[in-house]
């Protein structure tokens, strides 16, 4: 396991450094119509959004569904879903911040109540609600069941965010890479953008692994504390 974590760490650092170098210095600035130097934000913002919406919520949804399914029910699934949601919150916040930094010079405002931005902000509130829900009950099984159901319900917002730019008139541009029938980004810009998707995906799983290990440690510590408390009570009674 340590072996996997080490290689995941190396892959993360190498691809992230390559993304920064290629994104800031190697790729040419885009044309003025495409945003000039601002287009360099395309090497981070879509990749972070990809991790926030699809990779981390996908992980939470699959782990939650596996927890709810009797045959695969285990606290491991519950912990994975919880840790993925926590990491997801970080990426959703970064998605909103980098989107806002892009929006100010492009649209003239830091924030607009546009369908894509608003639905992403709602996702952040729901994800924070999930983390709050986990603190609402100390019984691990009740907590895991409620969290799994809520985690799956929150994920229903993800397709709404994805299609928001197509369903409603929004300030946010349409899909950059997935424009039906054509690829809107070319050459070194396209390769750098694709690399950034790998880099942030590696980073997500690296952070998830590390966060999972800490959660596992905390669970073991709580178990030892409970066993100590029970033993102390038994000694008092004897």
């Amino acid at each position, binding site marked *: 396991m340590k072996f996997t974590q080490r290689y995941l760490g190396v892959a993360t650092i190498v691809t*992230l450094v390559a993304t920064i170098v290629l994104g800031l210095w190697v790729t040419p600035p885009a044309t003025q119509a495409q945003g000039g130097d*601002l287009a360099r934000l395309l090497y981070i913002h879509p990749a972070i959004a990809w991790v926030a919406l699809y990779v981390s919520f996908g992980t939470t949804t699959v782990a939650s569904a596996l927890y709810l399914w009797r045959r695969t029910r285990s606290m491991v699934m519950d912990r994975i879903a919880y840790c993925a949601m926590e990491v997801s919150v970080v990426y959703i916040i970064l998605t909103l911040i980098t989107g806002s*930094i892009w929006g100010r010079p492009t649209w003239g405002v830091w924030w607009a109540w546009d369908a894509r931005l608003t639905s992403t902000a709602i996702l952040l509130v729901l994800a924070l609600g999930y983390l709050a829900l986990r603190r609402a009950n100390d019984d691990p099984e009740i907590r895991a069941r409620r969290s799994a159901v809520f985690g799956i319900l929150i994920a229903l917002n993800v397709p709404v965010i994805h299609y928001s730019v197509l369903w409603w008139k929004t300030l946010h541009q349409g899909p950059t890479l997935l424009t039906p029938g054509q690829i809107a980004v070319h050459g070194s810009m396209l390769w750098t953008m694709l690399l950034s998707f790998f880099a942030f995906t590696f980073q997500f799983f690296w952070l998830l692994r590390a966060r999972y290990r*800490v959660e596992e440690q905390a669970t073991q510590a709580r178990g030892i504390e409970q066993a100590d408390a029970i033993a102390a009570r038994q000694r008092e009674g004897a």
Partner: protein
Amino acid sequence: MNYVIAGYAFTFGGTALYAAVIWWQGRRGRH
């Protein structure tokens, strides 16, 4: 270019800060 630098700084600073928090929690858990 200032907006670009700000975007990269928030992204890499933010994830580095979160990684540091995880590392610190892990360290505290071991003691």
